[in-house]
């Protein structure tokens, strides 16, 4: 008897992510949700530029690779090509979504574009080797903030859920993390809701997953998961920031 | 071969582009080749708007007119700007309500029509443009109300049938002036 198997929506290709990286968990959650909702065959995923640039290789559904930051615009096109049948998600990191692609993010949210956005926030540019991200914490040491992020010099991190919650457009915004079993369960619930919302025609649903980057944070995987609790969550509090249909507005 | 190069010019809002479109459609219904080219950009808002219409027996080459055979000037800046460019032996139609000076050239035929005043007096103050078009058609070889009506029906949507009659009246008024 198989007690634990890969979801059907994930294929056999081995992932390129670093040891301890949480992308693998988040990929799996997205794939499990696709399986459970029975939508793999009509889902089109849009991959970003960043660590998850090759996400298109791992999911069994049709995939599109977008230019850096443009995934919400590409997703808008795919969705509108066949709104009845296409289920569309983007999978984006913090540099992609909150820096170079901020305009596309905000406007897709403002239009309440009926897509699902999985936003992986690990407060650093991983693929290029650990530079400061729009979500890097004040004081955080990165390759391009070697003395720690000086907010007087380069400003403050962007809190995406808080910011987007000010818009009338989006349907659902929730911040979760995946650094414990309980947190993973909760993250899955949020991701499932974000897809279900799309199926129900409710509109723009974004799940921000606070994640780790042991490699570029210079920590062991265990230390990195702890760092999420100690540093990330206090700055990026978990919770539902908007759930229009439920009448919730944080 | 006959080619008529016509330049219509006035303030934005005087219906220069519409008058040009009417002329172009008249050419089209007469079986001619036509082109219509507007000036565009910020100058259209309150400044001088102009429109080049070419009607020809042959395929129209350049739609841009450097030296018009006919100039329809609906305000003084237009006459000032384009009077010199009209070909020798050409025609100038001027709205004499708004243009107080006379045309200085003596090698062109000039028609002064108080179009703006006539339009106001007859209860259609926005149709000075069509009064001038009526005169222009008459000068170019005769005004046929039935033909003109057919053309008007192409430029005025069927929903605005009342507009068609008023435009026709304005055209006739110009033709008879």
């Amino acid at each position, binding site marked *: 008897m198989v007690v634990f198997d890969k979801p059907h929506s994930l294929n056999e290709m081995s992932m390129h992510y670093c040891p301890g990286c949480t992308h693998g968990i988040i990929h799996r959650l997205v794939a499990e949700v696709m399986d459970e909702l029975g939508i793999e*065959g009509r889902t089109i995923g849009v991959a970003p530029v960043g660590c998850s640039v090759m996400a*298109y290789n791992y999911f069994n559904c049709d995939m599109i690779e977008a*230019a850096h930051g443009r995934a919400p615009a590409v997703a808008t*096109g795919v969705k509108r090509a066949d709104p009845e049948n*296409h289920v569309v998600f983007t999978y984006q990191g913090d540099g992609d979504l909150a820096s170079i692609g901020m305009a*596309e993010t905000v406007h897709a949210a403002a239009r309440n574009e009926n897509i699902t956005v999985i936003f992986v926030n690990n407060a650093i540019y991983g693929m290029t080797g650990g530079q400061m991200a729009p979500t890097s914490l004040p004081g955080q040491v990165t390759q391009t903030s070697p003395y720690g992020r000086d907010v007087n010099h380069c400003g403050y991190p962007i809190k995406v859920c808080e910011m987007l919650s000010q818009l009338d457009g989006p349907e659902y915004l929730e911040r979760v993390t995946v650094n414990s079993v309980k947190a993973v369960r909760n993250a899955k619930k949020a991701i499932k809701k974000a897809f279900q919302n799309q199926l129900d025609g409710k509109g723009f649903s974004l799940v921000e997953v606070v994640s780790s980057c042991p490699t570029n944070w210079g920590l062991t995987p265990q230390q990195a998961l702890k760092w999420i609790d100690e540093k990330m969550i206090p700055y990026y509090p978990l919770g539902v920031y908007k759930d229009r249909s439920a009448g919730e507005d944080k | 071969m006959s080619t008529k190069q016509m330049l219509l010019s006035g303030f934005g809002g005087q219906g220069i582009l519409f008058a040009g*479109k009417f002329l*172009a459609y008249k050419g089209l219904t007469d079986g001619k080749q036509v082109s219509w080219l507007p000036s565009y950009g910020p100058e259209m808002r309150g400044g001088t708007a102009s429109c080049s219409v070419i009607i020809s027996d042959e395929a129209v*080459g350049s739609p*841009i007119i450097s030296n018009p055979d006919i100039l329809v000037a609906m305000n003084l800046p237009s006459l000032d700007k384009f009077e010199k460019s009209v070909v020798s032996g050409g025609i100038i139609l001027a709205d004499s309500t708004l243009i107080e000076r006379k045309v200085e050239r003596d090698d062109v035929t000039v028609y002064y029509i108080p179009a703006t005043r006539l339009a106001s007096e007859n209860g259609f103050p926005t149709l000075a443009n069509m009064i001038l078009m009526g005169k222009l058609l008459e000068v170019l070889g005769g005004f046929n109300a039935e033909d003109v009506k057919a053309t008007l029906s192409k430029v005025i949507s069927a929903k605005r049938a009342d507009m068609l009659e008023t435009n026709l009246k304005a055209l006739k008024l110009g033709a008879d002036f």
Partner: protein
Amino acid sequence: MADKVLMKGNEAIAEAAIIAGCRHYFGYPITPQTEIAAYMAKKMPKIGGAFLQAESEIAAINMVYGVAAAGRRVMTSSSSPGISLKSEGLSYMAGSDLPALVVNVQRGGPGLGGIQPSQSDYFQATRGSGHGDYHMIVLAPASVQEMAELTVKGFELADTYRMTSMILADGTMGQMMEPVSLEFDVKPAPEKPWATVGTKLQRKHNIVNSLSLVPEELEQLNFERYEKYNYIKENEAMYEEYLMDDAEYAIAAFGIASRVAKNAVNEARKQGIKVGMIRPITLWPFPVAPFKKAADKVKAIISVELSMGQMIEDVRLATECKVPVTLCNRVGGMIVSPEQVLEAIKEVAENGGAK
């Protein structure tokens, strides 16, 4: 044949696109092409299509990327500065081999430039406008009728070759009205088994992608793409020759410049100068053959352009510098006059073609 109607060039493009089966338009306002967006905004909702005013040119071209990936006919339009912004997306579309139609109603540049007509984006269009080795099929209409016809043709070529087709027009072509007949035999879009429309759990997943991290593989992809380009060069070049049979001198001009030049050619003929014109209709692929032929019989070629001399380089390449090629131009929104072109013709005729 149905009655001809008077339409602006911009409107003719929009209507022809709809006739060609395009049901998705994304754009951002910019003069002098905004009529296309306005037309689409009015029409698309009534025919089950989608018009969306994007937050930027960059977003617009990426929405086009999305619809193209889903295998539908899709377009965007802009004017020069906006095309620069779209260039990132155009490069990605080339790298992902996606078909779409892009319209550039050119205005004077560089920078914000002006809003009056220009042809100074010739290099940008024919050399690909973004990064990397790629081409777009570039179509240069010289009448409102051609604005419509080449729009339909552009969609067909895009689908046939999985490439972007670009209509390279200018402010004059976009704004002018001429009679146009809108009866076309539109070739239906071919099957697109590569499109990302959902696997239906019936096949392996499709991936639309321009990333290729293995140099050997990326090189091969480039080689294959250029084999396709070579085929297109040999089979799809379009041009019109005007009075070239006995011509001793030739004009090279496209779009609005060719309209002006035609007047000058006619006038020069009246004055006894044997001059003709070669009008490229495709700028990429550039119609090399008629220029090669002309190089063996004319004494000189004059390239008439609304740029500081861009197409002239292709004319020189095509004629392998066998005959002198001179430039007759205006820029910045100014347009050459027939008189100016006539003077240029007379000048080369007096010199017997020698520079």
